[in-house]
């Protein structure tokens, strides 16, 4: 009985502080209470640039003349549509607004 208890005591002492040491060495985040923590989000690498470069860069946006001409074309087309009665509806008279009233 004594030797058994001694062995158990030694093994307990040997493994004392192992969890904290492991966390410190390998960079783990201890959460003994199981609460929600933002560690998972903070651990992620910054990937904003990676997402932003999904679409390639359009060099037309760098030229103000090209952009102005496109804007002019858009406005003239809109004017023609309005003249023919095909322009965008006023607020509150569209399909979704009408559906909401029902």
């Amino acid at each position: 009985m004594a030797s058994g208890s001694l062995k158990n005591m030694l093994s307990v002492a040997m493994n004392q502080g192992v969890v904290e040491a492991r966390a410190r060495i390998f960079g783990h985040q201890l959460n003994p209470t199981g609460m929600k923590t933002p560690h998972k989000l903070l651990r992620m690498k910054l990937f904003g640039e990676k997402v932003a470069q999904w679409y390639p860069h359009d060099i037309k946006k760098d030229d103000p003349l090209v952009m102005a001409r496109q804007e002019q074309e858009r406005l003239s087309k809109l004017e023609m549509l309005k003249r023919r009665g095909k322009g965008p509806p006023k607020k509150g008279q569209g399909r979704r607004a009408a559906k909401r009233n029902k």
Partner: protein
Amino acid sequence: MRRTLVRNGSLYTRNLLHHSALALAASSRPQFRLFSSNENPPPVPQIDDVNNKELKAQIETYFKGDEKVLPSIMEAILKRKLSGNHEDTDDELMEELRMRPLDDVDDRDFESDFESIHDTDEEIDDLYNARDVVMKRMVKDEYFNMDDKKWDDIVEDGIKHGLLRDTKECEEILEDMLSWDKLLPDDIKQKVEVKFNELGDMCERGELEPEEAYEQFKKFEDEIVAKYLDKMEKEEASQFDDTVVPDKKKDLDDPPGEGPILRWQTRVVFAPGGDAWHPKNRKVKLSVTVKELGLSKYQFRRLRELVGKRYHPGRDELTITSERFEHREENRKDCLRTLLSLIEEAGKANKLVDDARSSYVKERLHTNPAFMERLHAKSMRLRESNQVPA
């Protein structure tokens, strides 16, 4: 004078009969002029001069086969050149000889030395078939067209079949041959140099002949070599008697065990472009054999608790992986830092176990009443002894 003129004239007419009529007309005038000029000088140089008859006789004997006459012929020609009296006749003679080919010359006598000294390659009949020729030669001669790879194969075969047993000894001998200047100790070199200088000075002063000096130097060198050999034998005998075992550990610069202790695994992706960075290149894997770390029983168990699944008990191998940083070298540093931290943390087990064991013993003693009584009495006695001098 008239008699000599008549004789010379008869000789020239005989020679001229051999040539054509044109030659007769061309060469007759200068000869007569020479005759007229001969009247002026005294008769003394004529005695040293060689006659046409004598020269012709010598040349004929040479052509017949007697080669010993050649030097005398050369001397005669030189004498006639120096006297200057027979320039036209000698020119005609040269023209005659030039027309005649020499059949008695032996080529082998000239070429025997050349062939023995210089070995030329055998001629290849068909140059368009060089590949087959080379293949045949390689089949015949094992060492034809020697290559590094072939040489390595030969050496390997020699080692396998036992022909080259002691390679280290061969290397030592080759090193000695390469640096033969360093074989002898410096004091012996100085002695030899001093002796050489002394003998040289004596030769320059004239006290000794070069041959005698050389013999003396040779004797001195032999004596020095004999002394050195005796010295070496004595040293070897003393070593053998003392049974001194050389410390081999100092010589070895390899760590104990087989192979490196830290084994690194990395990946290198070769991509086009100047930038060598690639996301696959980041990861670094470090493997260590735990036996090499020299841990005790308790330390080992603590290490296993720390690393968990990273330890492979079958191979006794601990593997640490890191891809935390962007560059591989940073990840290698991280792996090494992790390994050192693990070793340090595992090393704490001994202290913890000792503390636990001592605390256990203390508890057991506390629960023992007899021990406590004796301890109490002893402490009381100590207090009384302390109070007496006060």
